[in-house]
């Protein structure tokens, strides 16, 4: 019983990480119908920025966190302006390939700036684990969980209750119709990128103490986050959360109940099964078919 609970905690810890990354994918898809394969790299930039600002320069944690997120979001804006907005024929495949190229570029730049070594930062609040019925949970996992939930609530509020949010959703439904009603679609696209890369940076910064940071951490995290987003239903914010936790818990259960050798296999086979039964993901709507 104690073991089962510990597997659940392991799953929740990795699951929360996947969920926050999936959130960025889903959010951007929700507003632009674009899948940003450089998202993992923005997560990496967030983590490494925190390493520099908090770990090396010794700024207060909150300030370091804020500056990291703002800086990465600004990088996201520059990326959108230079590489996405300038494309003459914005066919989805063209844009996806551009994001793949951007991910390679960002990885290279990060390697030059931060070097090839792995960097680490301390936990936000102590490293004594919390004891729950014999199983141990890291305080950092709680941080991740709380911040992820806060981001989702804030985004949900933004999309459902503010005019800008609704305008952004309108762009995703029909870009042309939104433009005809006077919504500045270009600016909405930019905003979507800023928000998405910003959440990516938050993800990178809050997971840095657990995962440690290196220039090449983005690829695997991006892949896992993408899987979580697909699992939950691309475009659905709550789906990203559910998908992330499900993926994490499945992985941990696979290790505990079967074998650690099959960890990734179990998770991905289940992903295939779920997508086979319900192609739009657990909480996704059928409109995803358009892509």
């Amino acid at each position: 019983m104690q073991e089962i609970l510990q597997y659940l905690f392991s799953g929740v810890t990795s699951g929360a990480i996947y969920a926050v990354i999936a959130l960025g994918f889903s959010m951007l898809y929700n507003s632009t119908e674009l899948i940003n394969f450089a998202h993992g790299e923005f997560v990496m930039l967030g983590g490494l920025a925190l390493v520099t600002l908090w770990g090396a320069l010794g700024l207060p944690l909150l300030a370091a966190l804020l500056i990291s997120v703002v800086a990465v979001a600004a990088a996201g804006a520059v990326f959108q302006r230079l590489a996405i907005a300038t494309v003459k024929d914005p066919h989805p495949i063209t844009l996806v390939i551009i994001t793949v190229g951007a991910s390679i570029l960002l990885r290279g730049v990060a390697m030059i700036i931060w070097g090839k070594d792995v960097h680490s930062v301390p936990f936000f609040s102590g490293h004594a684990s919390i004891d729950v019925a014999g199983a141990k949970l890291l305080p950092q996992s709680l941080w991740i969980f709380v911040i992820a939930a806060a981001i989702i609530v804030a985004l949900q509020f933004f999309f459902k209750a503010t005019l800008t949010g609704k305008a952004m959703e309108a762009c995703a439904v029909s870009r042309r119709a939104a433009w005809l009603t006077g919504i500045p679609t270009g600016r909405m696209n930019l905003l979507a990128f800023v928000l998405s890369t910003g959440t990516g940076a938050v993800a990178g910064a809050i997971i840095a103490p657990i995962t440690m940071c290196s220039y090449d951490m983005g690829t695997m995290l991006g892949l896992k986050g993408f899987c979580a987003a697909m699992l939950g239903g691309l475009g659905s914010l709550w789906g990203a959360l559910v998908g992330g936790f499900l993926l994490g818990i499945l992985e941990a259960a696979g290790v505990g109940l079967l074998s650690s050798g099959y960890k990734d296999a179990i998770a991905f086979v289940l992903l295939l099964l779920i997508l086979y039964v319900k192609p739009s993901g657990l909480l996704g709507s059928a409109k995803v078919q358009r892509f």
Partner: protein
Amino acid sequence: MTRKPTPKWKPCGIWLAVLLAVLIAAPALAAEVYKIGGLFSVTGPASFLGDPEKRSLEMAVAEINAAGGIDGKMLEAVVYDTEADPQKAVSGINKLINKDRVLAIIGPSTTPATLAVKGFAERARIPLISCAAGIAITEPVTPWTFKTAQNDVLAVAAIYGHMKQRGIEKIALLTVANAFGESGKQQLERQAGDYGLQIVAAESFGGKDTDMTAQLTKIRAASPGAIVCWGTNPGPAVVAKNIRQLQIDVPLYQSHGVASPKFIELAGEAAEGICLPTGKILVAGLLPPDDPQKAALNDYILRYTETQKMPVSGFGGYAWDAMRLLAEAMKGTGGDRAKIRDNLEKIENFAAVSGVFRFSPEDHNGLGPEAFVMVRIEGGTWRLER
């Protein structure tokens, strides 16, 4: 009618003559220097090996040249980056053999890359001195392949010897799912019986995994007397942190794969009390004055920190030793590869950074168990055990 095609050919003829002249002159030019090839994973996942190795090779070459070269001939290093990818290593060795026509090759840095290029060196009859640890490189012995890194086997023997002293009987293994981890696991399983150890759990983790508490929970349920983790950063640091998190009160052993200050930095407080085998370079200052390697170690460390302006790494010594062994073997051969190979096999009692080399036709690694020492991490630094 009056035009003739001859003017077209005239410049061509000149170029042909130039080309011929170059072709004839090229071997004469090449003989002025001895070219040494290097294959290191300078970038990519194993850059922590290849980067210091490349620096060390270039340092050794510069030093030998400053001292007048070998038999009056200067050395030139040609280095290609393998990115720890066996395919890139193969294209690298082909360039070294066919384009650069090097005399001997140092590297690659990793075992899979070495195994991939080994056959090419054998076929081309070029001495290859690998900097990788896998035992499969020199066992079985092939005529042209040597290596300077200590075998995994010796690291496992050092760990198990230490466990026996502490009276540990049951152990659990946690290995990374790649060539390094698999090779370590094989050796750990093979030698356990010799030391009367029983393996009660064997788990693995992915090189980029961020949480190993699930594996450790399973291991804890098997109640081992010690845990052996086999991997390279950052995985083992995560394992150390997770063990602290789960409050598993069992000694943790790590492999020589994390024997660098980086590991202590990454694992932080969780590194305290961890035991691991390492080459003597990490604890050079703590060695007794009568240690045969002391002089070679101090010399290398001093030069490295002076010329590279960075702390010495535990891995660059493999390339440094390889170049020094090669220089020793090249003396008086006039650049004949077969003679260099024969001389390498005859090297005896060569005190170097990674150990005291004793090559023979049966042993192309030439290192004994004394090449490894056990260290314990205490107060954020290394302490020599025993």
